[in-house]
């Protein structure tokens, strides 16, 4: 017999090979296509912003856990890395470095660790970081370096609005959608990623590839992203059908701004989304409706971040009311 003692522990004696760390890294992998597009579009800046966000998220987690909370340091579990990347993806590539660091501190220190760390946070840390920056530094947070124009030249220094910003502004000045549509990128450009906006929102296609990877790997289920996209499409579609001159069509809404990034990567955050599929559908429905309301009638051109955070707050309630059906509570059970 072996020298080491026999282990007596309770069943089950086998485990699937999934770990939370692997899940986190799978999300990181899924973000690679979008990251590559952002580098292509924004060049070196994209790299800098991401590097700063990631390293400060990890560093803050380390420092706070080690010296402030004096708890186990969990920087290797992949969650701080992921928060860093997601935060960067939600920022303009021209954001001053110190602001990125402040955003990271808010994300990790306030949104995550003050709640008790991974798993205990109610709000998505990256989004809390982003919204904090947006509210504190609205000017810098909405200065978007214009992306490659005509797919060839990078006009890095010029700042412009995002398609959603252009639409919002145009409508406010009484322009019609026909007039506005000449000022926003074509659908094809939006699909491939040559629009304006924050780092990770660029290419709908790259994000969809990543999202598909997550669904295939069963890291996320389709319930949140699909419900969210369908809700947005239907809701904006209704307005567009009623008055196409004053409302952008659903395709523009889906492809611009953070809807796709939000649907696949932010709203699906395991920790801050509901536990059951039913709950997920309700959650995503709520996000979709709030997003559209903000986009169409709110003060901001973009609303997905707010919408996700608002719905994050309802997750405990959703979990309470949308429980799985207990086995053995089906009313009908026919006996022949």
């Amino acid at each position, binding site marked *: *017999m*072996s020298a*080491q003692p*026999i*282990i*007596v*522990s*309770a*069943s*089950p*004696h*086998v*485990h*699937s090979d*999934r*770990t*939370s760390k*692997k*899940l986190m890294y799978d999300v990181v992998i899924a973000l690679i296509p979008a990251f590559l597009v952002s580098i292509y579009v924004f060049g070196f800046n994209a790299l800098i912003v991401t590097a700063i966000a990631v390293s400060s998220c990890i560093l803050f987690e380390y420092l706070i856990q080690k010296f402030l909370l004096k708890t186990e340091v*969990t920087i290797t*579990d992949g969650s701080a890395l992921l928060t860093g990347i997601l935060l960067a993806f939600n920022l303009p590539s021209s954001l001053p470095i110190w602001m990125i660091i402040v955003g990271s501190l808010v994300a990790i220190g306030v949104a995550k660790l003050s709640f008790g*760390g*991974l*798993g*205990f946070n109610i709000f998505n840390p990256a989004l809390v970081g982003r919204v904090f920056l947006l509210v504190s530094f609205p000017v810098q947070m909405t200065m978007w370096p214009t992306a490659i124009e005509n797919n060839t030249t990078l006009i890095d220094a010029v700042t412009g609005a995002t398609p959603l910003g252009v639409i919002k502004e145009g409508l406010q000045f009484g322009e019609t959608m026909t007039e506005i549509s000449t000022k926003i990128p074509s659908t094809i450009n939006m699909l491939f990623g040559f629009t304006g906006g924050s780092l990770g929102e660029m290419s709908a296609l790259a994000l969809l590839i990543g999202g598909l990877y997550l669904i295939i790997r069963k890291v996320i289920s389709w319930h949140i992203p699909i419900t969210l996209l369908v809700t947005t499409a239907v809701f904006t579609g209704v307005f567009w059908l009623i008055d196409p001159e004053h409302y952008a069509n659903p395709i523009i809404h889906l492809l611009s701004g953070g809807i796709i990034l939000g649907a696949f990567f932010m709203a699906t955050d*395991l*920790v*801050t989304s*509901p*536990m*059951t*599929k039913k709950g997920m559908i309700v959650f995503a429905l709520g996000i979709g409706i709030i997003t559209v309301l903000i986009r169409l009638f709110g003060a901001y051109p973009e609303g997905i971040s707010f919408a996700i955070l608002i719905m994050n707050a309802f997750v405990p309630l959703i979990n309470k009311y949308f*429980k*799985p*059906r*207990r*086995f*053995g*509570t*089906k009313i009908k*059970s*026919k*006996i*022949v």
Partner: protein
Amino acid sequence: MLKTFPKGGIHPTENKITSTVGIKKMTVPKVVYVPISQHIGIPAEIVVNIKDKVEIGQVIAKSGGFVSSNVHAPVAGTVTKLDLIIDTSGYKKQCIIIRTDAKNESNFEDIDYPLKTEITTEPKDILQKINDYGIVGLGGATFPSHVKLSIKEGTNLDHLIINGVECEPYLTADHRLMLEKAKEIIVGIKILMKALHINKSIIGIENNKKDAIEIFKKLTAEEKEIKVAALQVKYPQGGEKQLISALLNREVPKNGLPLDVGVIVHNVGTIFAIYQAIQHNKPLIERVVTVTGKKLENPSNYWVKIGTPIKDLVDEVGGLPEGTRKIVNGGPMMGKAIKNLDVPVTKGTSGILVIAEDEASRGEPKNCIRCGECVYVCPMGLEPHLLMNLSEKGMYEKASQEDIMTCIECGSCSYVCPSHRPLLDYIRFGKSIVKKLNTAKN
């Protein structure tokens, strides 16, 4: 689409390395340790004394009540000791220790009797014999079979379901039995149908045992009353409630029994034991045990006398391999880890699994990331992460409201949790407290 139960379930890696190894007869052990409580319910009462000579099949402990079962001498020999021995539950249990006679012959020696298809026993005698011959559920629950079969007048019963699912990874005892004793099992089914006055039965087998499905399909081609159903491979389909839901789409009510939906379920092993009891007057003194593990020299299936020390079984397959870290009585999902090999095989032992270093230790528990996987896989529609938290915090009343008692302890939740949370450990603990609180209340 193959049938299966609708909610939850997992597909653990199968590792059925012994599925092609025929059942061998295990060498008769020199000493057997026969516990008097090998079933759910009241322990049997010892009716032999030290130094008594016993014959194979002789009653050595008599049923202690209705929910209890007789225990028979598995070998011929001399009672040397009545002693407390740690059994597979990890607790000390009263055992009858018998030294086997050098010459150990008997009329029951052989499981290879000629097939006897004609059923002459009357229904009420069938039940009596099942009781007398100590038949208990061999699927692992070891519920005394006569109790399960004693059905109140007026109960609406329409289906006998035969559980040939064997969804536990590694185990192949039922699979081999179905391949080698199919004809006997069919007779056993007919015996029960006669005893229960029902004319519909379904044999449920998972689709990873195509050969067994094939055999039963062929054998029942002419029979209108016995159906064979191939099921999608999904754990824990061998659970009674899951199996009924898979085959008949009926849901056993919460806190209810299969009888409430007109069904009675028996494991194939039990059916074979019933066949032997009724047709050949043979008590339950041996069973098929899968002895397996990736590192074993000769993993195999054996006919094993009840009371055989597990050490003898492990020796039979070449001894414990280097680096063994865990020995499990049963399958990897629901089996019990045992401390050492001095534990006897009982009526409920379906397999012995020897696990090496790499699989034996559990992952370090991390924070729950609220991924909902445990909720998704729970076949009972429970919220394991919630039940675990409630147990951990001592909120047993709440846990009870959240249906902790309906957990079937399948372990699917612990199996999938990416944070390696010991969900089932806490749920079991919570259940035990809730049970105590409930009995205190009544």
